[in-house]
Every structure is written in C-alpha cells, then in structure tokens.
C-alpha cells in the first residue's frame, strides 16, 4: 500500500486576508498539481472568509535562509545604527521632525 506514486507533492499556502494586506503564509497541503492545490487551499484555509486571494507555491521551489537568528547572513544590517531615525539627535524645539 506504500505506493509513493499516489503521494501528492507539498504546496505552501499564502493568503491575502483582505484588500490592502500582503499575502501571508498560513500552512501547507498536498495536491496533485497547482490547480488542485488552490482548490484544497480554499477548502482548508478559507472556510470562514479568511481570504480574498490565495497563492500556492510548490514547497520544493522555496529557497530559504538559514533559520538561526544569529546567522551571519543578517550581520550586515546589525551594525548600521545610522539607518534608524533615532541615531540622529535633534533638539526638542525643532518641530515636525
């Protein structure tokens, strides 16, 4: 019975909750193809109007950074405090800044 030819590939599902919001990852599901994945995503993830738009992406097509937040991958932004507005001291009597 462990016939792998009938095991469908994994898709990741992204939902736009309402107009004006980004699509957000909500989970995954198995489907034979992308078209079926969309239909399954509708049934599994939007039974109560949780979305106005769905994206599905084959999980194998996602390239991800390494998970550890201390990863040197993110180091370049770690020491650039001058990218933040609080880096600059402005006197309190200067308005609208």
């Amino acid at each position: 019975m462990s016939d792998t030819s009938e095991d469908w590939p994994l898709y990741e599902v992204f939902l736009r909750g309402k107009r004006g919001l980004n699509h957000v990852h909500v989970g995954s599901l198995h489907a034979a193809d992308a078209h079926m994945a969309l239909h399954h995503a509708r049934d599994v993830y939007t039974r109560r109007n949780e979305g106005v738009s769905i994206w599905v992406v084959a999980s194998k097509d996602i390239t991800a950074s390494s998970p550890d937040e201390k990863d040197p991958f993110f180091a370049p932004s770690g020491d650039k405090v001058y990218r933040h507005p609080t880096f600059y001291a402005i006197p309190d009597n200067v308005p609208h800044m």
Partner: protein
Amino acid sequence: MTTVELQEHFDRTIAHDRRIEPRDWMPDGYRKTMIRQISQHAHSEIIGMQPEGYWITRAPSLRRKAILLAKVQDEAGHGMYLYCAAETLGVDRADLTRRLISGDQKYSSIFNYPSLTFADVGVIGWLVDGAAICNQVPLCRSSFGPYARAMIRICKEESFHQRQGYELLMTMMRGTRAQRAMVQDASNRWWWPSLMMFGPPDNDSPNTEQSMAWGIKRHTNDELRQRFVDMTVPQAEALGVTLPDPDLRWNEERGHYDFGEVDWAEFKRVIRGDGPCNAERIGNRRAAHESGAWVRAAAAAHATKHASPATSDDQAAMQQNAQGGPDE
C-alpha cells in the same frame, strides 16, 4: 556550533518563552515528542469525524444537517492543519496515515465510544469539544511555533462546535419527556470519557515534567481536568441535566468542585484497543484510505501528463505549423 552550544541556544529560546521553528536545532527527544503529540492530535481530528459523521444523513432537519456537515468539515480541516504542522518536523503525511491505520500511532480514547442517539451529537459538542477547548487553549502557547499557530486557528473554530452542541441540547430539553431523557442518557455516557480526555492523573503521567519544561504543555492533566469540571457543572445546571457522579459537590475551602475517581482501568483498556469502537473506527479509516487510492493515483497521473512542457497534441500542432499549415 557544537551540540552543547546548540542545546544552550535551544534552552535560552525556551527560557525566554520564544518559539522554536521547524528548521531550528532541537533535541531529538523534543522532536520525537512533538511529532507524537501533533500526529496523535491530527489523527484524533480525523477519527473524530466518525461519531458525528454517522448522524449527518440522520439529522432531523436541514438546519441540523448543514451545521453538522460544517462541523465535520472543520474536523477534517483541523486534521489538515495539524498534519501540516507535523510535516514541518520532517515526517511524511502519507506515512502518518499509514501509521494510524496500522495501529502504530494512537488517537484520543474518546472517539472509541459510540454515538447512539442524536442527543449524542449535542453532548459531543458540549462535553467533548468543551474538554478539547480546555486542553487546546493553553496549547496556543506551545513552544513549537507551527503547532501553536495551528492551535490558534483551531480554537477559533472550536467555539462554534461547543455552542452548536449546547444549543442542540437546549432545544431537546424544551421538547418531550423522551427527548429530555435522551439528553440525560447521553450526558451520563459521555461524562466520564470526557474527563479521561485530559489523560492519566498527574502521579501516573511520567512525561508531564519534561513536557512542561519544554513549554509544550502548560498545565498538568489534573489542573485541566479540574478546570473543565468547574466550567461544566454550572452549564449542566443551566441545561437541567445531572452529571453522573455522586461525589460531585462544591468545595468551599478549595474553591473548586470535588469529583469522584475516574475509572482508569477502563481508560487504559480503551487506549490499548479494547474500547467499544476501536476496530470499527480504524476499519473505516483504512477503507476510506484504500478505496481512495485509485483517485490519488489517477490525479497524480493526470498532473504528470499535463506537467510535461508539450503534450502529444501540442507537438502535432507545432509540427504542422513548422511544415506550413493547411492555410498556406
């Protein structure tokens, strides 16, 4: 990083009550425990469709049919959310299904009891889903991110499940004497199995300490059981049914209800496979899986055929164009 450093990083994440995400390093025991916990929970949702699914075609009105259908569909959805969370730990969903139907993995003992009358549908919503909510709300803060997120989604939907059950029972309690007797009978049958849903007593629950240290369990079994009893007694009074426990009474000193001892021998028997419906539940799941095999295979074959860049029809058309079509 060395294993010691990885372990320290993991421990710090837990200590700060941050979430562990799938690709993080985690101790083998944590991974194994999470896989077991999540897949057992997923299996429970899937098997849990059966006691109520039986009543969909027998529900007494279109309204009740539609509600029950939506509820059972939710259970399927909950199973899917949870299988998805389990898969982030590197297990395969099809393999989990195979482990369920081979009896290698368990599901909640509660679903091995029969649903004998339509009142059972109401009592399952009220007591079984009520107990499930009690168990699941703290799991929304599980240290394992994908599980916690699935639980948040599930808890939002469970509230409908419990309320539809209670409303169904209120309706029956306003009916005939026979209908009220059905509600009482169903309450009698489901009360003790519902208390068993919280698992063995704390002094017989060896994994609790480690699970609490890992942040994958937030309260002990007995704490949650007590909370459920305290919440449910006033609901039973409002409904007008008695709960089948002569020892059930308010304890002013403790500020909680005292209640009798659960029959743990029965609990162990049902877990072991000797409940009233174990064989039937697994048999149905196996039959559904096996008789669906050709559909999965056909859909996969269809997808493979259409995934190739050019089908034979396309190729014929292209050849015709290359050779100069009939219009020329």
